[in-house]
């Protein structure tokens, strides 16, 4: 007999014994059967109760409520996962910027609409390094579109208190140019005289900058910036220095860098005093509209002071900037030349949460050229459409050389939006 046949024989024998034994086992434990019957009865009752509860839940909508809760929880879990991704992703990109549209009416001149927008790009990597850039896109009088690079910098967060800024950056001289000039921030539709192109205040610089800040005491703060850059270029015309172009150049014909910075002290959060300045050598590189090489180097100095104060709905600002190019006897434009400008501005938001704001600003810009010199009183009323959107109504009373554009009063209506 082989093993398989033997196993089959044993299996049949065991099965037959088990069948014979079952009635005998049942007869041996009648109390156990009664116990099982009791349990069966109890379970049947419980099942009936559950069925009744289920029917009741169906009738009053509880099941639907539970189903919605479960769906809501799923959505919340997905949102949390998404939010976590937003919070913890290594790289972040952000498109920002501002735009404005103006209607400008000049005394004894044609009125016109103008428009521009400034897209800003931010790319942050791991809270260590930030690339940021801003373009300036505007419609010119002849209909062409003018595109300029306001700034492009790589900002490396060196430590808690210092950031290295490399590239083309807004000039840290003063406060208006680096912090207040965007149309959705500036409380008047125009920049103060002397704070625009070819004025007294530098616009931007190409080079390296380190900047940061630190709390002082319980409520105070100090902020600082120091930079080295290519410096401005000088334009000559008719034997005089016509303008200091301080708009950031990727060349340095005089091969001398300009060094500068700004230090601000805030004894309390709503009060700020700051001094700023820069010095270096510059040279005339354009004379009577033509490029010029070899004009002698000469000293260049810019100095600024600014103060800001906020109290309740009142916002006060003031700023002074002086820019000077030294004399150079052998230059095509040999004389010392100096520009100065200052402004004082007060803005008041009417009522507690009112959307209306009144602004007044006085500016005095002194240029070595009479046709650029301007004294201006600007009045404005703003309606705050949103925290970053304003409708501005402005009037400028301008005093300049008679017959020049600097002497013409202006009405400006502007809608500005920071996004």
């Amino acid at each position: 007999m082989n093993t398989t046949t033997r196993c089959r024989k044993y299996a049949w024998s065991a099965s037959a014994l088990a069948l014979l034994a079952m009635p005998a086992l049942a007869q041996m434990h009648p109390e156990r059967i009664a116990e099982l019957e009791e349990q069966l009865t109890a379970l049947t009752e419980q099942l009936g109760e559950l069925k009744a509860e289920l029917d009741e839940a169906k009738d009053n909508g509880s099941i639907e409520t539970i189903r919605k809760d479960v769906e809501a929880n799923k959505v919340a879990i997905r949102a949390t996962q998404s939010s976590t991704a937003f919070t913890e992703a290594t790289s972040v990109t952000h498109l920002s910027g501002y735009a404005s549209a103006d209607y400008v009416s000049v005394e004894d001149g044609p009125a016109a609409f103008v428009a521009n927008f400034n897209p800003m790009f931010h790319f942050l990597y791991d809270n260590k390094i930030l690339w940021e850039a801003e373009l300036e896109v505007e419609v010119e009088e002849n209909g062409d579109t003018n595109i300029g690079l306001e700034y492009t910098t790589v900002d490396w967060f060196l430590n808690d208190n210092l950031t290295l800024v490399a590239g083309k950056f807004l000039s840290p001289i003063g406060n208006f140019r680096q912090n207040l000039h965007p149309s959705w921030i500036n409380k008047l539709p125009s920049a103060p005289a002397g704070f625009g192109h070819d004025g007294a205040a530098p616009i931007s610089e190409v080079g390296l900058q380190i900047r940061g800040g630190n709390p002082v005491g319980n409520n105070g703060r100090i902020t600082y910036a120091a930079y080295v850059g290519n410096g401005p270029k000088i334009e000559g015309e008719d034997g005089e220095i016509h303008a200091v172009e301080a708009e950031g150049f990727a060349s340095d014909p005089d091969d001398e860098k300009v060094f500068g910075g700004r230090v601000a002290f805030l004894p309390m959060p709503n009060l700020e005093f700051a001094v700023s300045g820069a010095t270096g050598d510059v040279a005339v590189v354009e004379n009577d509209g033509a490029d010029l090489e070899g004009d002698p180097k000469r000293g260049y100095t810019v100095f600024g002071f600014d103060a800001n104060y906020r109290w309740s709905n009142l916002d006060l600002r003031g700023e002074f900037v002086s820019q000077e190019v030294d004399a150079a006897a052998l230059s095509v434009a040999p004389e010392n030349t100096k520009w100065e400008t200052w402004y004082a501005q007060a803005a008041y938001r009417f009522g507690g949460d009112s959307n209306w704001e009144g602004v007044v600003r006085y500016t005095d810009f002194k240029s070595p050229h009479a046709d650029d010199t301007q004294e201006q009183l600007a009045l404005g009323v703003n309606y705050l459409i949103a925290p970053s959107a304003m409708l501005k109504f402005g009037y400028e009373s301008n005093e300049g050389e008679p017959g020049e554009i600097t002497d013409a009063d202006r009405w400006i209506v502007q809608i500005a939006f920071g996004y």
Partner: protein
Amino acid sequence: MRTKLFTLVPIAAISAVLGLGMLAAQTTAAAEEAKATTQSDPMQFVNGSKTWANTCARCHNMRDPKSLRDDQWRAAIAHMRVRAGLTAEEAKNVLVFLQQSN
């Protein structure tokens, strides 16, 4: 020679600052890591709200925390850290406040 000195000295000074910065970057990274573990610290929210209220209005109207998503605030606050001279800790606190308020 004098000119070269005037050029070299500030560049050397900047290099020194950068060197110190790189050394300090290690400390900063460790500090960031430590801060990441204390994100639920309610004082971050409180201090962030104070810094937000005291700093933003120095230049512009206060923007609604709901105006940007969490990730957008990260980039915006990094930008404002540079502009406003905030410390890393202050910027982190403001970010926590904005992300929990939007």
